[in-house]
């Protein structure tokens, strides 16, 4: 799980152009939106694309994202249970 969390952090930094940020700077338990990384709605859509592109996970209901994208740790847990690649 630790390896997946680290990889996911790298993918998020690249996909969302989080300039000057390293995986170590992201607290895997911190909120991705609002107070945490301060992501916006376009970033949420980009995370949906990231999940499909890298892990073969298609979110049928975008509102699922609210739960799945709570933190990197929650996201990694969901990916580990649902990934198809």
């Amino acid at each position, binding site marked *: 799980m630790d390896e997946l969390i680290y990889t996911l952090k790298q993918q998020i930094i690249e996909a969302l152009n989080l300039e000057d940020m390293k995986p170590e700077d992201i607290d895997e338990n911190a909120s991705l939106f609002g107070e945490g990384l301060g992501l916006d709605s*376009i970033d949420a*859509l*980009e995370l949906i*694309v990231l999940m499909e*592109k890298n892990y073969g996970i298609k979110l049928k209901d975008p509102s699922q994202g609210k739960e799945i994208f709570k933190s990197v740790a929650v996201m990694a847990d969901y990916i580990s249970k649902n990934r198809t690649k």
Partner: protein
Amino acid sequence: MLKVYINTETVTVNDKPLVHKEKGAALLTELYRNHIGDYPKFFKMDTLSKLGFVASELLLQAEGKPRFEPREDRAVIFFNKSASLQADTAYQATIQDAENFFPSPAAFVYTLPNIVTGEIAIRNKYFGETSFIVLPDRDPQIMARQLQNAFLDPTTNSILGGWLDCTDENHFEAEIYLLNKS
């Protein structure tokens, strides 16, 4: 008239050269880091928006007036001939391959040239007119006429505007200025 000029190798503020080391897209990032630096959304922008954002910041810093106070009397009006070509190309790359078809929302949102006028208006709390006019070629007469016309409404007293063109990360040019009604 306050004026900022930026191309891939040159930056001037009121005709005075601004010292820099980089060229092309790296130049815009260098200008952001050295002269702005408090707006991480910059890194998510397409090159046209980065160009407009950096040029407008240098222009408004040169103006030297209090920033970020809501106002309706300043319009943002730009012209170019390449519309949002660089962003269009970047987005197209995400949908080109049927086997690797992942449309990027972050790329898609910049596939209109007038997004840069919104970026600048949001940053500065401008609630006046915003326009982006795409011309067959740079035409000073048409541009002057359009800018004069913008002053005809009872609200607009000032315009942040000018030429803002970008074909890719290494080919761009901004010549923007502040105009006042008087």
